[in-house]
């Protein structure tokens, strides 16, 4: 009864039923495959992609909404209550978010790909409804936080950014579906900064201050340097808004990219120091992906700086988008998710067991190794395809990405199957 009893007595209120986070993670793993397939369908248009409906935009949103935000919602619903020491309220609403959000994302992706503005509009409304509920749940949890001010501060900026991202997204969708008189270029610039660096970026940076020391078994990074990174990142976001709206775009855009780059370098340095001080020397493939992601984060801000300086290269925005979304955020999320899944699975499989299954017994290393190689190959081919303006290289990237995503799905299915078998087994023993 030892571990299980402790769980159920003390942590029950802070742990969701496994079906809630795992359904978000399962959907994210599925949309990961969909994203690469959508990119494959539009491979020829990817090197010159600069917005507009079609399969490249569908692939982009299959990643951002389907993989990144999906994982962020599942992880936030589970991890923030533990971090903030606030019990989970409204677990039913969390499930409702899922059942509204997943069909909404599917409709958005298909609506963008075909393209079908009507389907896109319906999907966007469902996604917006689900995200509004999520933001409210998230804000309620943060508002009563009893600890971890740094994580809470990052979460608060992420929540505000998500709300603003939604507003810009709905404005752009209204332009597509209703012909609303919206300055699409301005809204898209705002949308990209707020979604990529604001919502997902701040959430990733904030949760890293808990997850990275936890997985590395290291003390937290020095708070004053972490706060400095947070202040610079928040300042960069704040500057990017007027820059996107056309207020001194050159000056403020350069300042935003510069502040963001310094914040990112500071954060990455803190993470590297944390890893080097950790008790755990073998951090696994997940952290190899995270290291690639951190490199891409800094690279994306250098590219943002070049964009702000109006460097005349037509494929620069595409390379920037790919570096930000696939290089930084996707690599990071997939790296951390492969550590979280067996960890959470072990916690849930512990119920009713004297000796719970270990995280390592619930994971599947072989598919993760295959995914790592294929993901890195896909990123390299994608960058080469954009740089060379070559659709065939992008097609090869999407083939590698798709097979890699299937391998990742194999890892996830194995972890869930082993967790479920363990829970059923414990149920039999307790009967």
């Amino acid at each position, binding site marked *: 009864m030892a571990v299980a*009893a402790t769980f159920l007595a003390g942590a029950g209120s802070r742990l969701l039923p496994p079906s809630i986070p795992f359904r978000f993670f399962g959907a994210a793993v599925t949309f990961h495959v969909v994203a690469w397939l959508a990119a494959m369908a539009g491979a020829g248009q990817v090197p010159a992609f600069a917005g507009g409906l079609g399969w490249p935009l569908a692939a982009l949103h299959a990643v951002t909404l389907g993989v990144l935000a999906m994982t962020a919602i599942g992880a936030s619903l589970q991890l923030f209550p533990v971090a903030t020491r606030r019990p989970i309220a409204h677990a039913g609403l969390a499930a409702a978010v899922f059942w509204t959000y997943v069909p909404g994302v599917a409709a958005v992706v298909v609506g963008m790909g075909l393209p079908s503005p009507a389907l896109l509009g319906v999907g966007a409304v469902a996604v917006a409804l689900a995200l509004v509920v999520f933001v409210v749940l998230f804000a309620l949890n943060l508002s009563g936080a009893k600890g971890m001010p740094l994580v809470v501060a990052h979460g608060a900026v992420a929540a505000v950014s998500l709300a603003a991202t939604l507003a810009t997204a709905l404005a752009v969708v209204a332009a597509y579906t209703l012909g609303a008189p919206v300055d699409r270029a301005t809204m898209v610039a705002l949308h990209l900064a707020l979604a990529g660096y604001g919502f997902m970026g701040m959430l990733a940076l904030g949760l890293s201050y808990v997850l990275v020391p936890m997985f590395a078994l290291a003390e937290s990074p020095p708070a004053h340097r972490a706060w400095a990174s947070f202040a610079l990142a928040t300042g960069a976001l704040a500057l990017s808004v007027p820059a996107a709206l056309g207020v001194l775009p050159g000056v403020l855009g350069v300042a935003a990219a510069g502040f963001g780059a310094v914040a990112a370098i500071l954060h990455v340095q803190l993470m590297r120091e944390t890893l080097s001080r950790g008790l755990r020397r073998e951090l696994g493939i997940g952290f190899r992906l995270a290291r690639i992601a951190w490199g891409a984060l800094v690279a994306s801000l250098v590219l943002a700086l070049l964009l702000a300086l109006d460097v005349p290269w037509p494929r620069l925005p595409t390379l920037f988008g790919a570096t930000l979304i696939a290089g930084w955020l996707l690599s990071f999320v997939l790296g951390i998710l492969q550590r979280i899944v067996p960890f959470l699975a072990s916690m849930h499989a512990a119920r009713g067991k004297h000796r719970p299954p270990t995280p390592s017994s619930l994971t599947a290393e072989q598919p993760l190794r295959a995914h790592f190689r294929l993901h890195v190959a896909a990123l390299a081919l994608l960058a080469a395809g954009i740089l060379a303006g070559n659709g065939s290289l992008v097609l090869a990237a999407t083939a590698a990405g798709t097979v890699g995503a299937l391998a990742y799905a194999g890892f996830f299915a194995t972890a869930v199957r082993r967790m479920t078998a363990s829970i059923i087994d414990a149920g039999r023993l307790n009967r």
Partner: protein
Amino acid sequence: MSAASRRWVAADGAHLDVRGLKPPEPMVAILSMIDGGAEKTAFTVHLERDPVFLYPELAERGWIATPVAADPGEVRLRLERAR
């Protein structure tokens, strides 16, 4: 190990108090004690809250946790190497 954790030996064996540390430092302090070999069979830890993320790490090391009576507002666990 964090300087803020307290360690002492009582009649029932070694104790480690990690209250007041911010996450994930309590977990790091506890696992440092196990991994460093300071306690090879069993010890008691005093925490502010249920260490939900500690359990998979204990399982990975072949240790188990048993809740024991504690003061209000405290979580106390007896950690033992599984036989």
